[in-house]
């Protein structure tokens, strides 16, 4: 039951984005997360429904971890304001990606690759902490939880922190044990998608409608009869 819920949970944020955010010109960060959710959902479906997916489960997971890190790093690059931090994100992300790719190519691909998953988790958690630290230091003109980016970062942190230890020790677990403890990943994935949905709703309801700002649109000026 729980694995099924975890697999179909991305449908919630996807639906909320398409219904509430699509027409509101969402920021690039939201598009990045939307794309990530679609990709994650598509890969889960491929892994379950195709033979190729079931046979190359660990390989797909390794590749997805690299893509996931790239997407999240790009999200933080867009979300963080400081130019200096952006520069460092680019430099460190390139190095981490090189490390992940080399680790993936040299690994056996028959077992769960703990190194890729845990390095990725630690790197993403660090970026999340940097984002939150920047938010504290910026002079606040609105509450932090009224921003969609905050909820996205919260969701990412919840997922990464709750699955970190699972990924670290997954290499030493047998297939049965992995199946037993994968419940942590399923729950985290479901919670993550729910919080992504909240992020999209926050974006929709915190940004005022154009009709509520009649002077922002010059076409509203009445014409002479």
């Amino acid at each position, binding site marked *: 039951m729980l694995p099924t819920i975890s697999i179909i949970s991305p449908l919630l944020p996807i639906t909320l984005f398409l219904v509430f955010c699509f027409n509101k010109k969402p920021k690039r960060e939201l598009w990045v997360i939307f794309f990530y959710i679609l990709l994650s959902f598509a890969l889960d479906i491929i892994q379950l429904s195709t033979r190729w997916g079931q046979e190359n489960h660990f390989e797909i997971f390794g590749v997805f971890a690299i893509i996931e890190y790239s997407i999240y790093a790009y999200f933080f690059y867009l979300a963080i304001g400081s130019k200096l931090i952006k520069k460092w994100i680019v430099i460190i992300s390139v190095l981490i990606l090189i490390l992940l790719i080399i680790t993936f190519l040299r690994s056996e691909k028959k077992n769960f690759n703990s190194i890729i998953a845990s390095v990725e988790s630690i790197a993403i958690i660090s970026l999340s902490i940097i984002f939150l630290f920047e938010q*504290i230091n910026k002079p606040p003109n609105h509450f932090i939880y009224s921003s969609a980016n905050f909820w996205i970062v919260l969701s990412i942190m919840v997922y990464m922190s709750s699955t970190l230890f699972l990924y670290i020790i997954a290499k030493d677990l047998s297939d049965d044990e992995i199946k037993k403890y994968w419940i942590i990943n399923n729950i985290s994935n479901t919670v993550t998608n729910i919080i992504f949905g909240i992020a999209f709703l926050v974006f929709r309801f915190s940004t005022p409608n154009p009709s509520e700002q009649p002077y922002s649109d010059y076409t509203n000026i009445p014409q002479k009869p």
Partner: protein
Amino acid sequence: MVLLQVLSPDNNISMVLFFGTIGMLALTIGLIVFISFHQRKVIRYQQQLQRMEQDQQKTLLNASIRLQEEERQRIAADLHDDAGPLLATARLYLNENFVNLDKTTQLQSIYNAKQIIDDTIQLIRNISHSLMPPTLKNFGLESAVNDLFQKISGSGSMNASCRFHDYRERLKVENELIIFRIIQELVNNILKHSNASFIHLTQNTSGNKFFIRIHHDGRGLTQTDFEKLNKSNVGLGLKNIQSRLKVLQGKIFFEKDMSQTYYKVTIELVKEEDNNKPA
């Protein structure tokens, strides 16, 4: 099932996994909660500061408007009570010439009317000078302050002197007027309330800062008194000083001298690069 595995003493991996996951989640949630509460506190504090600043600005604006109205009433009273009757009397004398054809009497009436008109001209000149002293515009702040202090000394009420140590280049005319009004207000307060026997003003420059210091030996204010009066409904003149200083981005400090015998008021202004160009 996971909990049973954890409670089993043989399964170290399960314990590590369980406590590790719970620990990481607790840290994450703790961090988020701390950041949210911290930011709420900062925003609330900022809103409070904004409200206080708005209240202060409202008070200063009200004081400024009240002072303006009082000034207008005073000018209106001066014109109505002094200039008006004088001109009416002059008109009466001149009207008499239409009735009285005796030349001597006519000449006397014209002479009386001329005296009264001279007095009226002097009165209007005094009103005009009190509005905008011509010495300030034509000769600068140093001359205008010298004039003011000479008039005070000349009246015999107290010994007033001033010394400008470093005023080679004039400030902008608008800024000189504001500083002159501040000095005028402070001197008026000292004359009205302090019972001082002497008042001495000095001007100095230090780097890009412009200082004016006023010493007197009467009853004075300390900085605490000044801030208290500023916040209350009284002290209109002090609020006016505060508004004028805000325009110049200046500061004022009231204190008792180190020797405890004099009161000192220090005005500190930042000298701008283009301050020296007269308007």
